[in-house]
């Protein structure tokens, strides 16, 4: 949407780093400040940045509507299924240690059992939610009902 060379090149350079940082925050949710919500927001913000500085098509090329909706429903579904797995393993709904998830050694990367799984699902869900919401808001509706991107 912005026809500015500086903004485009800067956001093209910065976007991968933002995405890596978002994934880092999601994956280290049980070790450092952050977690699924904040990491997902960072990751979604990078996709919003691409769609803002180029155009909607460039953003949709990164993650299509179909993929975003599948990821969104998948994140919510994965969260609930993790809770149901805990029931199947003999604990309460969304139980962690009581259900027998391997906790590992506290402070290591692979630790804390279900917490890491839930954090990843929440991160996927929040990132796709922000992306879907933004795409839907900036899309223009034509009189015939077909989609047309906002300039």
């Amino acid at each position, binding site marked *: 949407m912005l026809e500015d060379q500086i903004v485009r090149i800067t956001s093209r350079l910065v976007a991968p780093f933002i995405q890596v940082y978002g994934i880092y925050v999601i994956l280290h949710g*049980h*070790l450092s400040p952050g977690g699924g919500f904040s990491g997902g927001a960072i990751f979604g913000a990078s996709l919003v940045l691409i769609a803002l500085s180029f155009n909607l098509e460039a953003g949709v090329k990164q993650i299509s509507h179909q993929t975003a909706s599948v990821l*969104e429903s998948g994140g919510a579904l994965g969260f609930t299924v993790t809770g149901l797995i805990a029931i199947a393993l003999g604990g309460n709904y969304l139980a962690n*240690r009581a259900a027998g998830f391997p906790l590992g050694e506290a402070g290591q990367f692979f630790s804390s059992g279900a917490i890491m799984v839930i954090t990843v699902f929440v991160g996927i869900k929040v990132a796709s939610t922000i992306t879907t919401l933004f795409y839907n808001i900036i899309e223009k509706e034509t009189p015939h009902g077909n989609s047309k991107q906002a300039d």
Partner: protein
Amino acid sequence: MSYILILFLVILAIFLRFVIGVELRSILTIYLLGLIVYLFSFTVAEMPPFGRPDNPAFNEVPARYLEAGPSETGAINIISSVITDYRAFDTLGEATVLFVAIAAAVATLKSHRY
């Protein structure tokens, strides 16, 4: 004290209505809002001060989270262990709110067909 206040408010209302010419409806609205603000600030003044060790928030629950959190959940980030283990059901509700919100937004703003 309160009689003086009520007298002042009545005189102020008469002044506003007949000298300045404000509508009675606006005066009543402002007085009602002032009453609500007064009641709310009265409630806030009754709340315990921030960060005092004998506040009702500092009971055995956060002590348990802080002491037994890393060994019970395996996460050294206590906030993460609270929101995704001890109170994971609350977080599920939060994710459901997000899901319903985005579903409503897409249903309202939908301009493309899948």
